[in-house]
């Protein structure tokens, strides 16, 4: 057994090297640029600059708005779908599930291009509803990430709990609200975090669907295009902080609700 442990450690080395080179090192570079100015001296001007500029704050807000709405739409669409799938007695359940997953096998920019044509056909002129299109595009893109974890938690629910609830006199609705919904919270939380975070930065969807307003991702890009690496790094760092906070928050909630595993 000792030998086994040793070889496992060795197996981890390539990944550790990878982490060090491509995750940790760039982070330090980011930190360095975020807190220095053009002359290479330490400064917090980038930080205060971010929080005093109505445009950067507005962008943070706008990205947040898109992410919140997208997550909400995804949740509203995904929960019933996952619930029906998980509780149905259909034999073809796994086939149905595949139908949700298969789109993920197709390249994402291809899917958005196709969506663009469909939306143009439906709306006439895409450019008139930039926010709506962005939300549709993102929801379309991220929906499977919401369905899968919810589906897994619901299908793993202990049926005995529901029976017990009914024995104790709960109706269908009450049993759902007091048993199924709280128990599927871990799935919802992991789904939310998998949709919310990319939705804040995925500016390719905005570009492809003709929303000319910047979100966090494109804002960082514009700083770099203007040779302002220091400002750009600071925005990237702030975004990182936002994401960390969000992850801490959701994982805290998850711990409170640990019951049943999540697949993703």
């Amino acid at each position: 057994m000792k030998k086994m442990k040793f070889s496992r450690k060795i197996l981890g080395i390539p990944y550790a090297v990878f982490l060090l080179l491509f995750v940790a090192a760039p982070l330090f570079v980011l930190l360095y640029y975020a807190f220095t100015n053009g002359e290479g001296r330490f400064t917090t001007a980038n930080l205060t600059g971010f929080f005093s500029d109505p445009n950067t704050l507005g962008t943070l807000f706008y990205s947040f708005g898109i992410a919140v709405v997208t997550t909400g739409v995804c949740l509203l669409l995904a929960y019933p779908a996952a619930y029906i799938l998980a509780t149905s007695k259909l034999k073809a359940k796994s086939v149905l599930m595949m139908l949700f997953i298969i789109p993920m096998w197709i390249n994402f920019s291809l899917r958005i291009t196709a969506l663009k044509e469909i939306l143009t056909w439906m709306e006439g002129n895409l450019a008139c509803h930039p926010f709506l299109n962005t939300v549709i595009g993102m929801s379309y893109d991220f929906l499977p990430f919401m369905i899968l974890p919810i589906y897994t938690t619901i299908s793993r629910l202990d049926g005995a709990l529901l029976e017990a609830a009914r024995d104790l006199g709960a109706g269908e609705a009450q049993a759902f609200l007091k048993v199924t919904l709280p128990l599927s919270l871990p799935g919802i939380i992991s789904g939310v975090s998998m949709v919310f975070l990319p939705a804040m930065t995925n500016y390719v969807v905005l570009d492809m669907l003709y929303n000319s307003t910047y979100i966090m991702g494109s804002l960082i890009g514009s700083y770099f295009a203007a040779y302002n690496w220091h400002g750009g790094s600071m925005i990237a760092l702030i975004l990182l902080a936002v994401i960390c906070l969000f992850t801490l928050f959701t994982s805290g909630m998850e711990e409170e609700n640990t019951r049943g595993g999540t697949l993703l």
Partner: protein
Amino acid sequence: MMTEKKKRGVAVLLACSVLVFLFPFFSIQVNADTGSDEEVVLRVCNWEEYIDLGDWDKEETIDLDSGDVIGESSIIKDFEEWYYETYGIRVKVEYSTFGTNEDLYNMLTLGDTYDLVCPSEYMIMKLMTEGRLLPLSKKFFDTQDESNYYINGVSPYIRSIFESNEIEGEKWGDYAAGYMWGITGIVYNPEEVSEEEASSWKVLNSPTHRRQITIKDNVRDSYFAAVGALKSELLTSEEFVNSPDYLERLEAEMNDTSPETIDRVQEYLQDVKDNCYSFETDSGKADMITGKVVANYQWSGDAVYTMDQADEDDFTLAFAVPEESTNIYFDGWVMLKDGIREDAAKQHAAEAFINFNSRADNAIRNMYYIGYTSVISGGEDGRILEYADWCYGAEEGEEEVTDYDLGYFFSEDGEEGKYVVTAPTEQAYRQLFAQYPTKEAISRSSIMVCFDEEQTKVINQMWINVRCYNIHDIPGWVWAFLGAVILAGAGGGIRRWKGSYRGWGQ
């Protein structure tokens, strides 16, 4: 426990991953070894899809009177062979590409080294002022040497621009050799937009074509168009156009970066943002062809491509050059000091690369492949004009034809009547017009200079202001809603903390 077989598998996997990590070091080693003795390594960085990569079909042969032109293998490979045949030295071109001038600048600043790069004029100016460029050698300008295709073939018109424009007392022409050039204008659908409308930058904000027009997604092009639209009245007034120092005044007006102008441009572009179809870098061409938009702000080379593609679908588009002014732009080859260093062999190869690309047949191959217009007019070599005629000239027996005079581009003294393409009349405002604008359109062209650091900062900030969502624009109901959500959240938290709520599951 692991079986022997599994262990071997693991070992192989490990060995592979180690190899992958070490590979870059090995390859550098190999290059250094061969590079020093017998072979010159030339590191070239050019725009994406900006050189002929060969592999043409036989049917694509350009059959000119002076002989056929066809790209069998890439220009890069052809250059390596030609260099060996001509100078007896092996050269290896390491070819890479960049997406935007700013990307290239960032690459250079972050430590990538190249010997020869091809940025646009304003980036050349920026690199010149930063002292990063190596001047072209005297030999490069020797018209006696037949292999100096650039100096013997470059259009006199382009050459005079490169000679007359200076930055900090130094001529562009001393550092840069032109590659492609063009102007900016409007591609439009003549059924929806009139020529008159398309001939003004104001079309970008036209209320009659709300959400039907695209504009370029970069600050310089947008700035130029906005200044053109804002100063339209002045720029098209008789007094201004007929003033003796028209060109100087035009250039000054189009490069106006006074704080008031920047403020007005910001306001204007914010309107455009709410009125246009999109800010695009690439999608505009497809949207124009599929009819999603009726007009788009385009560089002349891409305009040719767009009209060609539309023609294949029997959909006719046209090109207009705004009356106010058009931005004439150049991409040119420049050598970098920290790439070439003092290596004479390398510099020779770099200059030969420029010359090889300037040979008439190669210029034609590049033009055919990428759709832009080469700065080469061919000098004694008549093939460039033949190519223009091959592309756009009228078929025999065609009824409506126009004589399209290109004297300003091809001849030393701008002589008219000698360099003429007889083309179908419609070409005068279609591909031929975009490829080789008329003298009249060129006469109102202006160069957009390189802004200094302070101006660049202000203008970039202006652009970010245009594109960002301003926090002051958030409607009141959103704030109210947010407040309610936060209050509710806080209320829920307190209730929970007091223990009046017990979670499920534990």
